[in-house]
């Protein structure tokens, strides 16, 4: 039994953490929040310099061929530091969808650029308010042309390529589009977390090619999201930890009634509960990381679907609680613009909604558990025997 990251992975984690501490202190996301830059160029650059985008890309496609456990520890630190970069869109979604479904040519063409950060990718699925369904897709791919509106698309304003979930005569497909090409117009949109840029992308007959052999694009999207869910969950875990650390520090140093507020059970038990949430989330995340690391583009580990959903459900709740109770622990100063508390509060909501929210993942989790009902049934019989 060795349910832990190995020394190399721990070293990578520390290296990433130290780098981000230096390059991405809270002033950086705040600068993006208040300014016009879509993302922090210098942080993105630093990540490229440490070859972070290349982490899970095989060497023959210009990657460094590490595994997903390495990508997971990087994700946790990115979440902790609120790094305002297109990393998640370009790596967890665009790169991974090409690895999953891309043809050899598409891999050869795009992965090296994505690995080196010469190209930023993203994935467009949402079509505005409401649920996303296989037969409800308004964006269509017909005879190589893409038409429709996607909104919000994370980093859609800065990405150069985009994988688009679209309807087609063969049902849903994943289509690859050059956002610099014709028939594409984009409009930056404002979200609850302005430290991450988003755009509404309108496709008006934009040239697009189906990703790989095509096939069931909806199932591909589900597989992609199961994998990305673990990586998003790692970022959420890092954020939840950062909130708890902030709250604990403040509770130790802030005095009221002649004593540190952390000596009052109202605060003390609140923080203990956040710690419990975070530890449950961590356990689910690391298990998800393991399940992801034992999956390949060809074969998904049997544990991944359940583990990914559990990791998402746990981290959405943990980050939400940690972000809002961190503000509460800070009291008056906590809800001021100058305090960093709201940076996490905003990010926690953005990440909670990504890939579908808690409602979607809870139902997906139960679906997965029902799929293994046989096991449950069997136990039931035993119990009644």
């Amino acid at each position, binding site marked *: 039994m060795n349910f832990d990251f190995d020394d190399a992975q721990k070293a990578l984690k520390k290296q990433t953490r130290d780098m981000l501490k230096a390059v991405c202190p809270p002033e950086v996301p705040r600068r993006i929040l208040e300014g016009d830059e879509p993302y922090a160029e210098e942080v993105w650059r630093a990540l490229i310099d440490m070859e972070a985008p290349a982490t899970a890309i095989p060497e023959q496609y210009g990657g460094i061929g590490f595994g997903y456990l390495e990508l997971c520890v990087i994700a946790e630190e990115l979440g902790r530091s609120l790094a305002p970069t297109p990393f998640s869109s370009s790596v967890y979604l665009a790169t991974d969808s090409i690895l999953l479904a891309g043809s050899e040519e598409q891999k050869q063409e795009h992965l090296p650029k994505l690995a080196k950060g010469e190209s930023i990718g993203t994935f467009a699925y949402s079509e505005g308010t409401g649920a*996303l369904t296989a037969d409800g897709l308004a964006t269509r791919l017909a005879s190589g042309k893409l038409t429709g509106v996607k909104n*919000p698309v994370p980093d859609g304003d800065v990405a150069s390529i985009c994988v688009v979930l679209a309807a087609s005569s063969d049902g849903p497909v994943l289509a690859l589009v050059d956002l610099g090409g014709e028939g594409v117009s984009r409009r930056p949109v404002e979200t609850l977390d302005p430290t991450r840029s988003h755009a509404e992308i309108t496709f008006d007959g934009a040239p697009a090619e189906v990703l790989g052999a095509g096939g069931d694009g909806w199932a591909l999207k589900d597989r992609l999201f199961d994998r990305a869910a673990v990586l998003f969950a790692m970022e959420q875990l890092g954020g939840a930890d950062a909130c708890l650390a902030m709250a604990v520090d403040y509770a130790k140093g802030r005095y009221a009634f002649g004593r540190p507020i952390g000596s009052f059970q109202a605060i003390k038990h609140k923080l203990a509960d956040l710690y419990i949430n975070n530890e449950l989330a961590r356990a689910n995340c690391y298990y998800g990381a393991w399940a992801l690391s034992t999956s390949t583009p060809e074969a998904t580990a049997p544990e991944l679907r359940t583990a990914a959903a559990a990791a998402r459900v746990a981290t959405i709740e943990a980050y939400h609680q940690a972000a809002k109770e961190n503000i509460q622990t800070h009291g*008056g100063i906590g*809800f001021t613009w100058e305090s960093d508390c709201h940076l996490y509060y905003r990010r926690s909501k953005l990440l909670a909604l990504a890939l579908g929210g808690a409602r979607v993942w809870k139902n997906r989790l139960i679906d997965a558990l029902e799929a293994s009902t046989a096991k449950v049934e069997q136990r039931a019989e035993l119990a009644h025997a």
Partner: protein
Amino acid sequence: MDFNDTPQEAEFRAQVRAWLSKNAKPLVGRPTVSRRLDSTEGMAIAKEWQTKKADAGFACRHFPKEYGGQGRPVIETVIYEQEEEDFDVPSGFFEIGLGMCAPVLVQYATEEQKQRFVPPMVRGEEVWCQLFSEPGAGSDLAGLRMRAEQQGDEWVVNGQKVWTSGAHYSDWGILVTRHDPTLAKHKGLTFFFVDMKSPGIEIRPIRQISGGSNFNEVYFTNVRIPDAQRLGQVGEGWQVSIITLMNERLAVGGAPPPDADEILRLACQITLEDGQPAIRDTAVRERIAEWYVQAAGLEHIRSRTMTALSRGQTPGPEASITKVVSANKLQAISSFGTDLMGVAGSLSDPATTLEQGLFQTGYLYAPGLRIAGGTDEILRNVIAERVLGLPGDVRVDRDRPFNEVPTGS
């Protein structure tokens, strides 16, 4: 039981309604008359309306005649406010003055001062604010440090206040200071009212998470206050503050929308993965039912308060319950509403978001509501100690000189 007015109340309500219909437009959706506290234009409109109300005898009817009121039971003031809610009129500028400053003046100021200051407040000619909290004294108000030193018949005041609503447009403010740090925490405080235009007062707005700036930091540098503007005895500042805060507790009301009605309405508009409206989803239904029950409970609790007022009794701890429940309900409903919208729930542009971004706004506004005017934690202490009679916490700050109380710094 009877949810109707008494005959007298009903008659008064009719008068009010008649007058309002003649002098204001009915409220349709959100108020068009700005309620933003930082709008000078909004302020002008508000002052005009307040004067009009006063001329008609509808402003602070429960105040004594000699101070601009009508000497009527407080229920009439409440009835007026209820009716006014249905009309598109300004608000948000005079509540603190009339709700907190006027009562303390009436109780502690000289007859001459009451005559001078209360009527202009009632008529909206002068605006008042409250200068209590400090960076190091929030929940623990008595921990305040703003220093007041007597020089002849004046006091020289230095220090910083914070969370002062409307300081930047106020003419006067009530102020609690520490005149002697060597006395015990609650014994060394003295209470004043101060001309906000005095030299040495500097005001800086505080920006909130939500982007708004309803509060200010107020810096005092050698501000001179005549001893004649002292309210209560030297060293009596805590008792005077407590009375003011009691009035605040009564004033602090519920939360702004979204509430149960709005989330129900949203759930009828959104379609989920199964192609059904969200309101058909039992998980959604059960959550909304729980919020509706809270909202209905608070509404009925208000009816119980009304009943007490209409009998001339003073209400109980209802305000504390209302604040804890409604602030947390607002946060939960706002968050749930954005979740229901799916990935696009993060879009915050009111122009293109369902319900004009009400849920996104609420999400950012709610955290402050759980803190300002008494945190969840302080209000639970209040309920547990004042209502249930549970013993207070162990105190290490009470029986020693204030300047020897641990501060961590």
